[in-house]
């Protein structure tokens, strides 16, 4: 009950945030964004032709009216049709978002779970050789550019120079084994890069927690080191860990998939967004920007509720 009330209050509180984000992005799109008028006209158009097209596109309406229409689109999830393909935006989203989620989820989860595991191992053996080995590996992972990793992995796994076992690019998924074949290389590349950052961050959090008094108390009562680590230390470290994981979700969904989908030619939401930016496809951009803001608000809400779950001191009042 407390949680439900809190959720409602927080969602209502998120409305100004969504309004602010959409207002600023809409402002930027209208004044600095793509203008379709001249693309639709031939050479040397007359003023009448220009006015007609602008009227058709709705460019002649006052700014606030256009913004109001945008908000209405947000509320009804009906963003009209894509400028470049004529396909309704809602259909584009319904087609591409599941692909993106299917593509990034395994890498995201594995990157974090393995990161926490490696961090636990490193923290357990801290300042020993295993710790140094893991930390060395994570620095390597952090230091190599994602682009290089992608290219290297494509050569190793997908080309005739290497294993030649997986498709280089594309998305032709009809079965679960197809799915595994197409996501393996992107997932490995994502994990390789994310693991470095994650392991380092999580290890620092865990080591910090290990120096706390309550850990010494648990030791003084004979708690086994393994249990100490996964029960006492891990749960106490959950707040920074949750913060990192949750806040990276919106970024990973939008920009993470953007890079990886364009490199692997996968028709997900990132690829669609990238194309929309380069071609100036306003209906799609409006949808992506607005929905990302909403995703952020929801993520914040879930994060706060999760804090309450792991730490009884957090109040939802």
């Amino acid at each position, binding site marked *: 009950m407390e949680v439900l009330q809190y959720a409602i209050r927080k969602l209502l509180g998120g409305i100004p945030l969504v309004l602010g984000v959409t207002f600023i992005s809409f402002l930027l799109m209208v004044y600095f964004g793509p203008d379709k008028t001249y693309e639709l006209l031939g050479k040397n158009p007359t003023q009448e032709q220009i006015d007609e097209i602008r009227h058709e596109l709705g460019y002649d309406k006052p700014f606030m009216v256009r913004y109001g229409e945008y908000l209405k689109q947000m509320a009804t999830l009906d963003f009209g049709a894509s400028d470049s393909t004529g396909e309704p935006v809602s259909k584009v989203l319904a087609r591409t978002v599941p692909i993106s989620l299917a593509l990034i989820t395994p890498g995201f989860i594995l990157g974090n779970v393995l990161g926490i595991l490696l961090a636990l191992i490193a923290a357990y053996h801290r300042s020993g050789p295993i710790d140094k080995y893991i930390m060395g590996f994570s620095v390597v992972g952090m230091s190599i550019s994602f682009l290089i990793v992608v290219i290297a992995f494509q050569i190793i796994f997908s080309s005739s120079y290497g294993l030649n076992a997986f498709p280089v690019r594309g998305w032709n998924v009809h079965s679960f084994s197809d799915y595994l074949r197409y996501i393996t290389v992107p997932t490995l590349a994502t994990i390789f890069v994310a693991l470095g950052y994650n392991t380092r961050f999580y290890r620092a959090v865990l080591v910090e927690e290990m120096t*706390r*008094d*309550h850990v*010494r*108390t*648990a*030791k*003084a*009562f*004979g*708690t*086994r080191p393994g249990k100490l680590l996964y*029960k*006492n230390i891990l*749960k*106490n470290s*959950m707040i920074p860990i949750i913060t990192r994981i949750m806040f990276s979700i919106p970024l990973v969904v939008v920009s993470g998939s953007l890079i990886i989908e364009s490199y692997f030619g996968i028709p997900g939401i990132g690829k669609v967004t990238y194309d929309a930016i380069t071609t100036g496809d306003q209906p799609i951009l409006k949808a992506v920007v607005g929905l990302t803001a909403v995703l952020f608000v929801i993520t914040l809400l879930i994060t706060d509720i999760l804090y309450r779950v*792991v*730490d*009884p*001191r957090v109040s939802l009042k």
Partner: protein
Amino acid sequence: MSSENKTPLLSVRNLVVEFSTRYGPVRAVDDISFDVYPNETVGIVGESGCGKTVTGLTLLQLIPMPPGRIVQGSINFDGRDLTKLSEKEMQEMRGSDISMIFQEPMTALNPVFSVGNQMIDVLRRHKNLTRRQARELAINMLDTVGIPAPRKRIDEYPHQMSGGMRQRVMIAMALSCGPKLLIADEPTTALDVTTQAQVMEQIVKLQDEFHMSMILVTHDLGVVAESCDRAIVMYCGNIIETAAIDDLFHKPQHPYTRGLLDSIPRIREERITELPIIRGMVPDLLHLPDGCRFADRCPRATDECRQDKPVVNIDPVTGNGVACYHPMG
């Protein structure tokens, strides 16, 4: 204490504990020996940094190793040398045969688990109990240490309790497996004065009930006078005096002990004079003098004191001893 005809429960011999630092090894505990007999309460007294807390932690091997290291010495407890035990055997020992309570009840308990959860963990770690049995036992223990409505409070989190309550929870946890020895490291220092007295009273009462020995690490001589049978005075990692409590307070032998006692404010004293202090500073543990470590601050020091370090000679009859060439007598 009639200590001659009993075997000690704990017998520490020539214990040396070193910490490696950037500037070289520091001996936090330097060649100390002492005994604790069954049912006895021994106070370890001294100012900050004298090695009293390290001594307590070393008994349970809780000092961080590295940088800490037991260089030499033995810790005989109940017929076993703790320094020779494996880490696994030591874990079995901690919380069951030897328990420890800490200074900071605010941070010593885990904030994200209920006190019941933490107590049940300890009970089930050392005793073969079901969750339900352990819970009943934990409720009993909370009742024993004087927590009202234990059935309700067992599901509370540490932040929902006051400092005194938390320290009581710590005590309940420490006693729950029936230890033979309790090491209490400044158990009341972080509490306010009225709570201090209550908690200390509770500890002493329970010590009797549970028939255990206790090592009370503290800088509070008042607490020592009220609750200990014997006291050990430490200075710069050395034991400088050990004596039965009455002897220590009425006839302190070492000038440092005398100084400590003199610097306790006395309310009933008719003439209010300036409180005596011990002049000078504690020497740097990295650059210790060859002779007596207190010599520079000592009004009775002679050349002999500065050349050779005096050692504690225990009187076999009284069990008292002092490391001084010119004891107060």
